[in-house]
């Protein structure tokens, strides 16, 4: 019938975009409490339980990249300049992407019988491969005599947060409205981001008559008219209280994930564990390319005929050439909050080129969160010129954004107490720019591995992320601000706000296990 080219005839157009097994959720990493036979590090990559909990997609390849490195100080405080920061990012780029650097890695694929093939590549003891059963704790013996614990299977989702509250804070319309896919400019609406409700922000303020709006997939029709806000103040109730955009609900409650959980001896990762106290790691999901699904094709013609087409990809080995990188995960919120949820920015460790974007995005967020923090009577690290209300502002020039976020970027994030540093070592407090670029989970083996020195299961990282916008040189009740301040119920009890709750739940909906694999059993 058609005498024309018609890809739309086979294109999926806009069917519902299904959750994919390639959707990575979280990367956890912390030193194991079990030090029998030497130090070990726990790594857990979690992702959507597709096709179902404990059942894995045979077209997927999951990859963990791991690099043991010494703890090094970042640029000194005298280098807190834009130039110094960009120089630091360049140096990191060389370290992660340079010709001599290559992380070790673990790859996991699944066969039709749901057994997992686990490949260990480029470790000091060599490379090897093994096959393990899924949904069971297994011990993998390495050629150099170490034992690695492995659990690859379904678990309860270890992430706990009020995701809807976060989306309300950034005016993310698809969480609350049916936004047509063609309305690509109507996702984060051009309304100031905020931690407390804006007066007259009818598009996102909570509806007391419909408290579940935005939760459990409950959405409304997108109203006609400009999707903006023209107010000039924060909303207050009759008692003069602000209204929190969060209510502390756990949106992940009752949800399962699939996971790859490993407990690995540090000596397997590095030959110098005394020197290499940082384990940098991140996860990736790859999906088999269509051409390689057809086994009878001996070689993919693309690589044979056009090796110049994708220069970076040429670095890949034969196995990875058959797959397409879909998602990466290192730091929580590195993509969701700091990259405006643009999928092509999910670059994992290789996010150096985004450094200028990171600074501009942080300034954009700061204009929203900074004034809300000030309104609550707290000190903010963001320079918002004493704005009485949140402002929607974007930057095209990093040089204009940088002065606003300088303190946010360079301040050392205080910890609530010394428990994170049980050995009492001289470990510098981490700074936001070090945490998010590169986008890796950097586990400090001399700490407990609590965020930002790794990520423990019980860490409330959503609330800790917000603490970046607090001024960590300020004090409250004689104590310096710290990353857990916003998770302190007493703070909210005395704040002029309703509801009087911490932003996100304080604990997971299921108790974590004290032993491997640590994540709770899946929900039935």
């Amino acid at each position, binding site marked *: 019938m*058609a005498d*024309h080219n018609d890809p739309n005839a086979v*294109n999926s157009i806009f069917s519902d975009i299904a959750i994919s097994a390639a959707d990575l959720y979280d990367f956890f990493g912390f030193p194991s409490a079990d030090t029998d036979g030497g130090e070990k590090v726990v790594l857990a990559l979690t992702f959507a339980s597709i096709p179902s909990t404990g059942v894995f997609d045979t077209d997927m390849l999951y990859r963990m990249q791991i690099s043991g490195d010494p703890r090094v100080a970042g640029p000194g405080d005298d280098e807190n300049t834009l130039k110094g920061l960009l120089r630091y990012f360049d140096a990191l780029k060389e370290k992660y992407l340079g010709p001599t650097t290559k992380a070790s890695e673990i790859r996991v694929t699944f066969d039709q019988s749901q057994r997992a093939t686990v490949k260990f590549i480029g470790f000091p003891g060599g490379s090897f491969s093994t096959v393990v059963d899924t949904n069971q704790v297994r011990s993998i013996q390495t050629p150099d005599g170490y034992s690695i614990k492995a659990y690859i299977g379904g678990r309860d989702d270890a992430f706990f947060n009020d995701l809807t509250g976060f989306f309300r804070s950034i005016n993310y319309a698809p969480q609350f409205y049916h936004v047509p896919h063609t309305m690509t400019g109507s996702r984060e609406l051009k309304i100031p981001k905020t931690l407390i409700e804006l007066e007259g922000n009818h598009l996102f303020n909570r509806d007391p008559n419909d408290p579940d709006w935005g939760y459990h997939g409950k959405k409304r029709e997108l109203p006609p008219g400009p999707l903006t806000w023209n107010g000039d103040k924060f909303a207050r109730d009759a008692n003069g209280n602000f209204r929190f955009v969060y209510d502390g609900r756990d949106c992940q409650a009752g949800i399962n994930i699939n996971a790859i959980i490993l407990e690995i001896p540090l000596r397997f990762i590095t030959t110098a564990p005394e020197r290499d106290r940082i384990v940098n790691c991140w996860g990736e999901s790859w999906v088999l390319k269509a051409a390689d699904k057809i086994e009878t094709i001996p070689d993919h013609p693309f690589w044979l005929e056009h090796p110049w087409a*994708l220069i970076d990809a040429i670095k890949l080995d034969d196995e990875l050439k058959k797959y397409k990188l879909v998602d990466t995960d290192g730091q929580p919120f590195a993509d969701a909050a700091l990259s405006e949820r643009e999928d*092509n920015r999910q670059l994992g460790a290789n996010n150096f080129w985004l450094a200028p974007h990171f600074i501009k995005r942080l300034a954009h967020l700061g204009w929203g969160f900074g004034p809300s923090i000030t309104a609550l009577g707290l000190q903010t690290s963001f320079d918002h010129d004493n704005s009485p209300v949140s402002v929607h502002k974007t930057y095209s020039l990093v040089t204009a954004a940088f002065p606003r976020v300088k303190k946010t970027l360079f301040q050392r994030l205080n910890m609530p107490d010394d428990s994170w540093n049980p050995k009492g070592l001289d470990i510098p407090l981490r700074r936001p720019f070090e945490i998010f670029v590169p986008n890796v989970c950097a586990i400090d083996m001399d700490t407990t591995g609590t965020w930002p020195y790794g990520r423990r299961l019980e860490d409330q990282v959503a609330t800790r992320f917000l603490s970046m916008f607090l001024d960590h040189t300020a004090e409250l009740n004689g104590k310096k601000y710290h990353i857990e301040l916003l998770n302190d119920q007493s703070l909210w009890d005395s704040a002029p706000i309703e509801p009087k709750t911490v932003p996100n739940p304080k604990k997971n909906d299921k108790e974590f296990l004290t032993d491997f694999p640590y994540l709770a059993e899946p929900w039935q």
Partner: protein
Amino acid sequence: MGAKQTDFDIELAQINSRIAELEGDALQLPVDRTKITKLAYLQYQRASLTGNLAELDIAERTLDEAIQHLGPDGDLYFLKANIHFKLHRLADVQRDLEASPDLSQSPPGRALKADLDFQQGRYDAARSEYETLIEEERTWDTLARLAYFNFKMGDFETADRLYDEAVDELTAKEMRHYSWVELQRGVVDLSRGNYAQTREHYQRAERAYSGHWMVEEHLAELLGAEGKNDEAEAMYRRVVARVPRPDFQQALGELYLSMGKTSDANDVLEKAHAAFLESAQRGEVHYYHHLADLYADVFENGPEAVKWAQKDLELRRNFSTLAAMAWAYYRAGEFSKALEMMNESLASGVKDARLFRCAGMIHKALSPNGTADRYLQMAAAINPNYENFHVHR
């Protein structure tokens, strides 16, 4: 024990099942946006998969109902625009795209607008937009669009590279799309007379997504081109039995003619002819091109060929409709008009063996100045077998 289900069977069953789940309440008031959009999409997908164009009407009715209740939603209009594009209702496509500013500015809307530009002979605009879209985001379908553009313009190397890149974007979750791209690559090779490579692509398409009539239909044409007429006939008969569309009946009829089976040919060609005319009487426009071809090539009825080619040309003035018009004039013995149309078609920059063959024939009818031979040589340079069996795509 029954035969193993094909990928086609499995997907069609899933679509049917999902439609059955939705049909009950998707149209109930108040209209649920998610359900009604999903239903229209599934109906469109079923029509595309089965090749049953009548089902596009069902999808369009669902869309109209949805738009009535939900307003000018970009996603709904995008689906509507795709239906209209499939049916050659290009003015409607333009209106659909304009109905929602969000749609016309979105990447899928822009890609469809570029397709429209291509169909209406605005080649530079089409190419430019495809290239811009690819620069913004490399999606398999835009790469395939630009590949097709280059194929038609005779840059086979670039087309091949772009198809390679399109394939490289496709994952194991998109095997039907991959199969479709392989068919397009086969068409490129077939147009150059590379039958072995064509077969490889078609076989790969079948392995990627088994049981699709579209693969059989392409294979049938290849068999016909290779002169394997009995196999081609058997395959076409299967295709027509599965998808009783007049364009496939036309292809079978023309194969019969090439085999000297005049009686069988007349039988199916008359059926095709009647169906094409019925479609036109219903106000449909998507078979004009076939009517022009049928009258010109099979019935050798110049005036009727001119009539239908003119109607098609009024809808979309592109190299293909201009060439059909030229050929119709040729059949009508109006060689000067034929040449005028052909020259305009050739000015598009398209390089196609059958187009050059028509140009050669028209020049031959006009004068013995050697231009005819030059065009026939150009046709042979692209495809030494350009006189072999082919269908009108």
